[in-house]
């Protein structure tokens, strides 16, 4: 089984300061939210690929993208069925659905769904890079540095700590119940859900027991009571990191500028707007994509410098 977790591959991207990666991901996240234009979104998505390549996390990334693909498909289908805006009708349903009316399938609605999907892909791709290249505890430390409450951050970190254990539990319990003659895929839909209870109940009860034991162990090691705490590992931003951090925010600034100039927007309804690029917008877009990609050479230079 390919594991869905961080693995230290010692690439330049892995060695990048978590704050820089967070800056980069945040930029992509915000730009993808404020910009509507499918060409922009596609370019942003493509701009994440060099980073994925540099981090050598293709296998994990592909898994995320497979999952994202199904999500996108769902978005396109649901949006196309529910939204009746758009003027180029592909198909009109011969029946009425209460509250929604007569479902109408339009070219615009399908493409709108596709545009939204691009947005999702760009964001997921960026998050995949972050989670697969950053040690969960480092991520936790940077969250704490950003003044998020320690206990909530710790809970998140504990959850990731126990995911492998949980996967083992599921495999073991399924073996046990299958050995008792359980066939998961027997019967109708409800029967199948009932079948799974034989796995879910032991899993949940075992996890509950585990929770108490983990709490006990943490308590025994002086956890809690809300006093001050040291963090052994420190995430230090050296001068070079600060520069990288600034560069990682550059695309965000470019994105905001694009929006501020009144561009980057795109109307799907009622008819598709013509895609056009002004000179200034093209320039800004180029800057945006370039500054997203420039993370790779910067990370490599940083790694070189630190090796010296």
């Amino acid at each position: 089984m390919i594991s869905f977790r961080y693995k230290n591959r010692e690439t330049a991207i892995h060695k990048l300061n978590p704050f820089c990666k967070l800056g980069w991901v945040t930029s992509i996240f915000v730009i993808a939210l404020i910009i509507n234009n499918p060409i922009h979104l596609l370019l942003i998505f493509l701009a994440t690929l060099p980073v994925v390549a540099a981090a050598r996390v293709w296998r994990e990334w592909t898994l995320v993208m497979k999952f994202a693909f199904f999500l996108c498909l769902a978005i396109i289908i649901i949006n196309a069925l529910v939204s009746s805006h758009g003027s180029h009708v592909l198909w009109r349903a011969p029946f009425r659905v209460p509250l929604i009316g007569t479902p109408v399938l339009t070219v615009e609605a399908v493409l709108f769904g596709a545009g939204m999907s691009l947005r999702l892909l760009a964001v997921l791709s960026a998050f995949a890079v972050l989670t697969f290249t950053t040690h969960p505890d480092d991520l936790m430390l940077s969250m704490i540095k950003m003044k998020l409450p320690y206990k909530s951050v710790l809970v998140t970190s504990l959850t990731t700590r126990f995911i492998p254990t949980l996967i083992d539990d599921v495999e073991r319990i399924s073996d046990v119940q299958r050995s008792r003659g359980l066939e998961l895929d027997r019967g109708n839909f409800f029967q199948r859900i009932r079948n799974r209870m034989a796995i879910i109940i032991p899993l949940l009860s075992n996890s509950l027991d585990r929770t108490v034991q983990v709490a006990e162990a943490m308590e025994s090691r002086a956890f809690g009571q809300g006093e001050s705490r040291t963090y052994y590992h420190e995430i230090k931003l050296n001068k070079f990191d600060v520069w990288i951090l600034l560069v990682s925010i550059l695309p965000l600034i470019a994105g905001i500028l694009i929006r501020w100039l009144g561009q980057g927007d795109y109307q799907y309804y009622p008819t598709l707007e013509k895609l056009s690029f002004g000179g200034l917008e093209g320039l800004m877009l180029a800057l945006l994509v370039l500054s997203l990609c420039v993370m790779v050479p910067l990370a490599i230079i940083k790694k070189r410098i630190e090796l010296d």
Partner: protein
Amino acid sequence: MIKIKDFTFQYGGAEKPALHNINVEIEDGEFVLVTGPSAGGKSSLCRCLNGLIPHFYGGKVAGRVEVQGLNTLEHSTKELATRVGMIFQDPENQLVTQDVEREIAFGLENLAFPRNLIARRIEESMDTLGIAALRYRPVYELSGGEKQKVAIASVLALHPEVLILDEPTSELDPKSAEEVLSIVQRLNDELGITIILVEHRLDRVVQHVDRLIALDGGKIIVDGGTRNVLSHNYQEISAAGIGVPPIIRLAYQLKAKGITDAETPLTVKEGRMMLQEVFQKISGKSPEHDEKSTGKPVIEVEKLWHVYADGPTALRNVSLKINEGDFVAIMGRNASGKTTLVKHFNGLLLPNRGLVSVDGIDTRKTTVAELARKVGFVFQNPNDHLFADTVEEEMGFTLKNLGLEGGEVRMRTDEVLARFKLDKYRKQYPRALSGGQKQRVALASVLAIQPRILVLDEPTRGMEYHLKAELMDFLREYAAQGNTVILVTHDVETVAEYAGRVILLSEGNVVVDGDKRDVLSRALLFSPQINRLVQAFGKYGVPDDILTMAEVLQLLK
């Protein structure tokens, strides 16, 4: 120094006290073994020493507990953490971060120690435990034994004066268990840390400990020097269901018969000294081999290979036959392929190459559910088995899965509940039962189908002595009725006592396959205690394939 005075504790919602009027004083630097049957109060005693009782577990408290001069009622678990360290049974559930170094730092960070001190303590405790090589390894990649060492290192980093270990080895294989125990022994010996070790397998530890405390029903039944207690309070200890090592049992029997009056031996070496005189005068015949099995083959494995998707080759060209009525033990190191092999017997795993047939049916041509009629499979942890609302329904689940209905289900349920003495629990929630009862319910739920072949994967790991004896007696009888019993285990003593045939795996190969007497005797460390004892007397004509106490007694008659 630890002082417990007139201490009584009752968990909130419990009907009777878990600890009843406990009075103990433990000196600095002592190595104390706490033992007793489950639910006897061992864990509760540990919890009251580091303040988990009453700060984490609420309830009714009377009396006082003082640890290194601090009253645990008035000082929080956090304050006590630098004085008392605690290690728990399941290594998995006490590691909270993602890698080893951070794990060791966790407690120190909580105590707000400065960074340079944390760095020093990490180095120290990693070196003490010999785990420096694991430093950056993610926790999920470690083996059970390594995890337990990390847990000990992370507690040791706080420099506790007292270390409490609550059954630290019951989830580990024998080799890791021995490593962990010898580390604990060294911490006591060289660093002078007071050790309180809870353990129900005495054979691993008696030679190391200074003092033995036995708890039963929340009360201290025996407390004293180890050797003294084991010779003078032998009866109380074994009556409480505590498993006494074979050598000590043998010594007790010999003394009772007036054959020897030597001191009770704690190690094999001392046992040999004790028997020197006795054995020099005696010679005899080897005990008879169990009859060669003659039943027809029920499981046939031919040239079986199994390779996990992203893992190592687990089985390499394994061929064997298991016959009707066999009682087979499958043994071997961790990751030697034991579990992989038996999972082929009911189709949970299918051969990558080669053939496995059960009752003449190729496992690739049928389903796990279909094979479940013939092959019952009991896994180690009953908590993975149990999910129904009542014990009765738990039986019904297996039976209905296999297509039985109405009257038949009721009849079989009644039958199996009666056989396992579970009648009075039939309407109870199975997960709320005690450990031993849960084990029985899990076993019953598998045996309700009356499978001709029964596979058990480490059923006795972490199980206390009398429950183990009960289970093994049942299995022996089940095999005697013409059924096949296949046991995956690390427990040499149990195999010596009960099994007929032993298959030894290593690196996915069958290394030895034969009668237990041939496999287990004359081996180096793999032999049971009694065999290691008699091996030295081969030159006097004592048969060196004696495996159990009963056989020695037979010889001396």
